[in-house]
């Protein structure tokens, strides 16, 4: 039995073209980019070429691209780094974030509140998980240090009006960060159009390797380093650069930015087919997140009185890999915080199901999944 992978929001396989770009940097160009000799120079060339490629598709300067170890590190560096410097520079002590951010933002914000004395305020979200620009305008204050709103939500797929929120922040001279880890796998990542000062990326969501990410830092934005030490990454992140992975991320980013519109068209068709059949064939199922303002590959549902964790195990035993917002592989499910924040009652919040297709998902894969799902949900409801 061939297992069908429908969990591309969790991670994606490495694109073979990316692997090909990376390989020489493991063996041939293995040098330390900080070294003076030719080995170091070759590695440094790969590193800076990678930075230039990232900058090209982000529409920024290479000096505005900081390499990190993952999207979470980018989020940490952005939020903690910006909050602490901004307070130092102008005494700003207020953080404004969405309540359904990725834990990398939520926990960092919590830490800034608990350990560093920041005032943490959550923006309201509508039933789709969207932050409205008007609410940002209402709550932003001169003493706001950073506003952070994710571009696309990982659990329910909803897109936020980042450009408009960015505009408001820019007018108020407040730093605006967006966690774009999910979004840049599918959407243009033009930081100029998005009006952001800081933007987080993780490579493995777009067919790049795990363990590498980037943070766009608008020129003139000072941050506290995420890791102190050597002068790598403009002094913001010490440690010898992971050159093969950075090269891989740049190639994967180049490919996704070139191919995203054609990938999205294909994904959207599958996504809409999944949404239509689930809502039609499964009783007591609701689409979570926005019906149209959502990631093109992302279908997510709340299923009443279903243990999402068990459902995902049952689906896997039948050859289909998806995920549940409330599920974790330790079998210690808590009601989904995101669904709770969106106003779902307890009989719905344990029954999250997320189905995310990828560039290689076929219509046959999706139909086979949809043919199986209703019976499995019915069985899970008997438990």
């Amino acid at each position, binding site marked *: 039995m061939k297992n069908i992978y429908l969990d591309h929001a969790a991670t994606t396989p490495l694109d073979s073209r990316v692997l090909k770009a990376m390989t020489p940097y493991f063996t041939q160009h293995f040098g330390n980019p900080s070294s003076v000799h030719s080995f170091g120079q070759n590695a440094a060339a790969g590193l800076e070429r990678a930075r230039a490629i990232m900058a090209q598709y982000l529409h920024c300067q290479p000096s505005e691209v900081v390499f990190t170890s993952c999207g979470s590190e980018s989020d940490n560096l952005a939020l903690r780094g910006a909050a602490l410097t901004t307070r130092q520079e102008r005494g700003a002590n207020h953080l404004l974030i969405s309540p359904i951010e990725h834990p990398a933002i939520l926990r960092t914000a919590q830490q800034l509140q608990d350990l560093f004395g920041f005032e943490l305020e959550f923006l309201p979200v509508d039933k789709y998980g969207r932050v409205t620009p008007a609410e940002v305008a209402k709550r932003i204050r001169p003493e706001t240090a950073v506003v952070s709103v994710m571009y696309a939500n990982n659990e329910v797929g909803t897109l936020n009006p980042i450009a408009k929120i960015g505009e408001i922040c820019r007018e108020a001279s407040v730093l605006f960060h967006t966690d774009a880890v999910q979004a840049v796998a599918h959407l243009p990542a033009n930081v100029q159009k998005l009006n952001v000062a800081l933007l987080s990326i993780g490579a493995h969501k777009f067919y790049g390797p795990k363990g590498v990410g980037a943070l766009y830092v608008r020129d003139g934005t000072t941050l506290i380093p995420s890791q102190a030490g050597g002068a790598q990454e403009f002094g913001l992140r010490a440690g010898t650069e992971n050159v093969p992975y950075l090269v891989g991320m740049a190639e994967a980013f180049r490919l996704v930015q070139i191919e995203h519109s054609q990938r999205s068209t294909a994904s959207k068709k599958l996504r809409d087919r999944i949404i239509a059949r689930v809502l039609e064939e499964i009783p007591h199922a609701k689409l979570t997140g926005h019906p149209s303002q959502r990631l093109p590959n992302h279908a997510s549902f709340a299923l009443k009185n279903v243990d999402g*964790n068990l459902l995902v*195990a*049952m689906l896997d*035993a039948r050859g289909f890999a998806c995920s549940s917002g409330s599920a974790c*592989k330790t*079998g*210690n*499910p808590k009601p989904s915080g995101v669904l709770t924040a969106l106003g779902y009652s307890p009989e719905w919040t344990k029954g999250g199901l997320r189905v995310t297709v990828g560039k290689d998902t076929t219509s046959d894969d999706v139909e086979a999944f949809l043919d199986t799902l209703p019976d499995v949900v019915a069985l899970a409801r008997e438990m």
Partner: protein
Amino acid sequence: MADKRTVVVAMSGGVDSSVAAALLKERGERVIGVMLRLWSESEGDSRNRCCTVDALSQARYIAGELDIPFYAIDAKDIFHEVVVKSFIDDYAQGLTPNPCLVCNRHIKWGFMYERARALGGDFMATGHYARLRKKNAVEVELLKGLDAQKDQSYFLHVLNQEMLQHTLFPLGEYTKAEVRGMARDFNLPVAKRPDSQDLCFVGDGDYREFLRRHAPQVENPGPILSVRGEKLGSHLGLAFYTIGQRKGLGVFAPRPLYVIAKDLAQNALIVGEQEELRQSQLTVRDINWISGATPQQPFRAEVKIRYKANAVWGMVTPEEQNQARVKLEKPLHDITPGQAAVFYDGEICLGGGTITK
């Protein structure tokens, strides 16, 4: 390949369930590993001593080595509802419960069996030391494990035919030493872990402290009385004492005194000398007969009144409503209401129930 059976194995990360999974895999079964997450007092992340995060990673690692799928299944709510609450209730009623039996019947089988079926399992397997033998085309008998030291049929007497017919005990034919040897032969990365614990949900393993925390009403002092009704002292609450207990009574007497009964009506702890503890009659309720049929005649059987006790011969007289009277051929001094009495015909486990008195 199409008629390959699917077996869902309850895994704990320990040597027994790991070898059970490996044996099934070697036999060519399609194997799925499962671990239940059970309730524990340490809220938040489950610290149940049988299914810690540590045990979970170990089980997941072993499943990976065996190349079988593995899932953790949440059973916290039902475990608390069924096992922990009845544990507390039983103590409040003067009994000394055995929560493993409740767990086996309702959680490991019952809850988990249903989920094993939902995962596509034809059978469920565990690392218990017990055997199953076909009696005819459909029915099975439950037999003691071949390793007399490890035999766990006592804990399995609560299972019914439907459950047993869909259960496999791959370790029943082996001794613990052989299982350890197989773990080495299979190259299983079995870390040194203590065997699964009784009272896995009690944070520090001290049931008295657990009761104080979760059932403060059991802290209900009353008199300690002799069998003749003389007041000899006072107790802290009946739940804190066990039948046969000698130490910690705080009563001075010329000869050692033992707890021989609990009088709920008077909230009195009855103590007496060792001979007064001896009993040869007991009544048993909620009996599960493995065969599914209540025996029509009184019969002679070996009776085990606790897991580690030696079996003694007795006459079992079945009664209405799954009860029985038992007359032992030799009196015992540790017959404890709340524990199970399990009946054996040689190596065959016939069934058993809860001792009422």
